[in-house]
């Protein structure tokens, strides 16, 4: 039962509950580690996700070693991405009084789900710029 807040931290569970202030349904993706067809949601602003039912060991592949799997493990961050093993869209319920004074969108995923804390695109741009500069200096 640990709270994870660092970029890149990932949880996986059979049932995952949580909330977010803003979310987007991004469509179907093939998950690069689990190699399954999954629906991607992107949550932005004050997001929270918690494992309420652990997943089966048979659902895990090579590459899932770093994923947190215990019931109660949770992610708390501004932006998280969620892959859900379903081809249909889940409903998000709007409720007040969860995220400070703002309304929140509550989700209860009842299919295998993988949630990660996202890294801002700006950080990737910064790293690529730095790598390109280092390469030029070396030459």
């Amino acid at each position, binding site marked *: 039962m640990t709270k994870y807040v660092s*970029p*890149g931290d990932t949880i996986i569970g059979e049932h995952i509950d949580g909330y977010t202030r803003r979310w987007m349904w*991004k*469509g*179907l*993706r*093939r*998950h*690069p*580690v689990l190699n399954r*067809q999954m629906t*991607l949601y*992107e949550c932005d602003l004050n997001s929270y996700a918690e494992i309420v039912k652990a997943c089966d060991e048979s659902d895990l592949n090579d590459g899932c070693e770093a994923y947190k799997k215990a019931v109660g493990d949770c992610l708390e961050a501004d*932006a998280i*991405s969620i892959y859900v093993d379903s*081809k*249909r*869209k889940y409903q998000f319920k709007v409720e007040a009084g969860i995220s400070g004074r703002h309304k929140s969108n509550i989700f209860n995923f009842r299919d295998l789900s993988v949630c*990660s804390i*996202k*890294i*801002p*695109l700006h*950080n*990737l*741009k910064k*790293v*690529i710029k*730095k*790598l*390109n500069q280092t*390469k*030029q200096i070396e*030459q």
Partner: protein
Amino acid sequence: MNTVEIPSNSPHMKTHLTLSISSENEFMDIISGKTAEEVVDMLFKAVNNRTRERNYFQLYCNLLDGSITEREFDETIANREDDYIIDESESPSVNKVSLALSLSRKIKDVNSITDLSSLFSFNPNSLENLVLKELV
């Protein structure tokens, strides 16, 4: 890149000599057309991935308005996976990510690493690992 003016005999003519330094095979890749080819491939991939997204949302709308049944919806996706599902398995090189970032400046709605990886079929984990490795 430095430009040097070279004096010539004629008072109306000036000769400019350009000295440029390129990293690795960057220069050769540009003049041989390899970079242009890679850019075209990436743009084709981006268009096709956006089309896959559109196809999925169109199919879902058809399911919602009753044009197709739940079973037809599942079967269509299962039989024509390449038309509906975006693959995110490629682990790109730093050069390719750099190119993708340059291209994404002109493409709508690329606001996160997930958007970038969905557009160009990159593995989001490999992009995130690259950032985490360099920033730590």
